[in-house]
């Protein structure tokens, strides 16, 4: 296949106008099958690709097309991939790490956003877009004083469309819940999947910690807040299922650690776990290289690895293959299985970001809380 960039590379003369025409209306990076051409235009002494693919060397250099300010780099990217990246632009001894100015697509993670290259055949899931046919659920606040955490706790509660106080609903506690709403379109996803019967109507408690790196890091105070303070208040206010199959915990990154930790502190109380790209750091020998924030996590995960136990009935675990955490998650899945839980483990050609977590919600939620899809024809 002749790549589009060859038109320019092989052109005898390359005017700025020709480059303008080449770029006009063209989606960048240029995806041609599994080959992707990254493009940068502007004054620079050197340009490098900084990507977030764990295991591959980063900072690949771009080539400049002679006589122009156009830089390019050709890479092989597997189909259906999403690869996070930034451009490192060097000019007169100044190095800038920037998002790709020619690409508006972003991947959001708990710390910010990067440019993202969407490989061939990747498409945003249609079930994450607002569906005019789907009835909309509502969200409302629930505030209480947490003695466990020594502060006021504010929870946002999602109620499914046509919520009825006379019916009983499963409860799902979502760590980083507001971020899930913002970056993973959780409310739209719930509205759509519930409307389609793929997921049972459920109540979701969206918690957002102001100190997630501490409170989500296997912190017993957080577990007490969830189990002894939040869930009882929710059960008091809403008609919630009282069995483990009707209670779930979810989270991504440190939020997944919090979810597993709460479940492990109260085995069989929560029957459903959705763990996305969990920061399940552990060590076989010596200290963890991941830094002090991970110390309590390492202690918890090491303990769990030593004595794996059945903490729930059904667990959905997902992770991106481009994440450094893929090793930890691959290691965790068989442990969970061995302890007698029904585990669904899914990998995606993606990174540590909210869109990856969004894209796995349909499979995860419908596995944990299946709806009446096969029976319902409205």
């Amino acid at each position: 296949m002749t790549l589009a960039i060859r038109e320019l590379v092989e052109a005898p003369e390359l005017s700025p106008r020709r480059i303008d025409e080449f770029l006009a209306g063209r989606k960048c990076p240029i995806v041609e099958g599994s080959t992707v051409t990254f493009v940068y235009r502007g004054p620079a002494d050197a340009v490098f690709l900084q990507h977030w693919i764990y295991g591959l060397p980063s900072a690949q250099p771009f080539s400049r097309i002679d006589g122009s300010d156009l830089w390019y780099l050709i890479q092989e990217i597997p189909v259906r991939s999403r690869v996070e990246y930034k451009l490192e632009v060097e000019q007169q001894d100044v190095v800038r790490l920037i998002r790709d100015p020619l690409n508006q697509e972003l991947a959001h993670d708990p710390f910010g956003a990067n440019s993202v290259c969407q490989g061939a055949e990747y498409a945003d899931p249609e079930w994450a877009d607002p569906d005019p046919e789907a009835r909309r659920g509502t969200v409302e606040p629930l505030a209480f004083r947490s003695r466990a955490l020594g502060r006021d706790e504010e929870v946002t509660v999602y109620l499914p469309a046509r919520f009825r106080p006379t019916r009983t609903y499963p409860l799902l506690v979502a760590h980083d819940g507001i971020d899930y709403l913002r970056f993973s379109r959780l409310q739209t996803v719930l509205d759509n999947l519930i409307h389609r019967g793929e997921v049972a109507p459920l109540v979701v408690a969206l918690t957002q910690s102001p100190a997630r790196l501490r409170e989500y890091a296997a912190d017993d105070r957080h577990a007490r807040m969830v189990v002894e303070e939040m869930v009882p208040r929710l059960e008091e206010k809403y008609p919630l299922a009282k069995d483990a199959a009707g209670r779930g915990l979810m989270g991504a990154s440190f939020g997944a650690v919090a979810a597993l930790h709460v479940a492990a502190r109260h085995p069989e109380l929560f029957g459903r776990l959705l763990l996305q790209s969990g920061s399940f750091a552990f060590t076989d020998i010596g200290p963890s290289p991941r830094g002090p924030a991970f110390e309590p996590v390492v202690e918890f995960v090491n303990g769990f690895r030593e004595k794996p136990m059945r903490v729930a009935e059904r667990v959905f675990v997902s992770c991106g293959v481009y994440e450094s955490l893929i090793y930890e998650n691959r290691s965790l899945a068989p442990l969970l299985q061995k302890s007698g839980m029904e585990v669904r483990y899914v990998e995606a050609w993606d990174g540590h970001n909210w869109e990856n977590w969004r894209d796995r919600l349909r499979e995860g939620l419908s596995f944990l809380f299946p709806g009446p899809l096969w029976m319902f024809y409205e």
Partner: protein
Amino acid sequence: MGIVVLLGPQRFTPTLGEAVARAGVEGRLASVTAGWQEREAEDLELHEHLGERTVNLMLYARAEDVFEKDAELFRAHRERQEKLRTLQALYRRRLAATRDAARRLVEAQGDEALLAPEREDAIRALSRLDAHHLRRVAAIDAEFEKRWRPEGRPVLRRHVRAIERQLEKVAGLAIAGGHVAILLNRLRLFGIASRVGGRPVFAWSAGAMAVCERVVLFHDNPPQGEGAPEVLQAGLGLVGGVVALPHAKRRLALDDRGRVTLLARRFEPDAALAFDDGSWLLFRDGRREAVSGVQQLLGAGEVAALEVA
């Protein structure tokens, strides 16, 4: 049976009023919204659409009352449902392998002289399995009826009499969609098929599925599993010769020739019919008389507008 009209989903493109008028039905209509379960009574939109002429038979609420007051019947009902669930799971297990074989042969290419008889037999194996399942379900239902004789039980009898009184005053019956198993169960529990007499019946979505001879559950792109259509149980059989597939555009991969072929061939000689928004099919005395917008899945893997002679 006089007039039966099967319709597509009514939520966004209500055509029920037009169908009722076309059938020349004047006067009040009994409605069944039991498929909506606890929202059964929230039928204002339907009531207004039909010119405030509906009387809801409240089959879901009546069944709840029966189960609450007749604990023995409730227990027996639960036991039967559990048996049916187990049986469905066993059938599903066999279905996976049988359907997989049929699907592969439908899509296989090669020497047709060798392939065609194998393909035919694989499809027939699927049909035989469906038929076997229907017989097993019917046997469980028959055993339940024989042992517990629900209609002879006082609480149920009281409700049946009340329903009969309601039906005496109406000119037709409208059956809405929703949860097809619950809808069908409630229709059966109160013997609606035998009580509706010759009155016209208008049924949409799950309602349309329930009044056919067999109920087929389907979804080609579910979030879990590969989406193999399965027979649930026999329907009320108010119309014959068709398998109703509502919301087909959303639930079926109609451009997948292999899937379409298999779905169409498996239920032959019945016609697999796609009912989407705005579509309807009118039967008079068991014969298809008029149609609009209904698509038929064809054995060749295509989908074509249904026509009636």
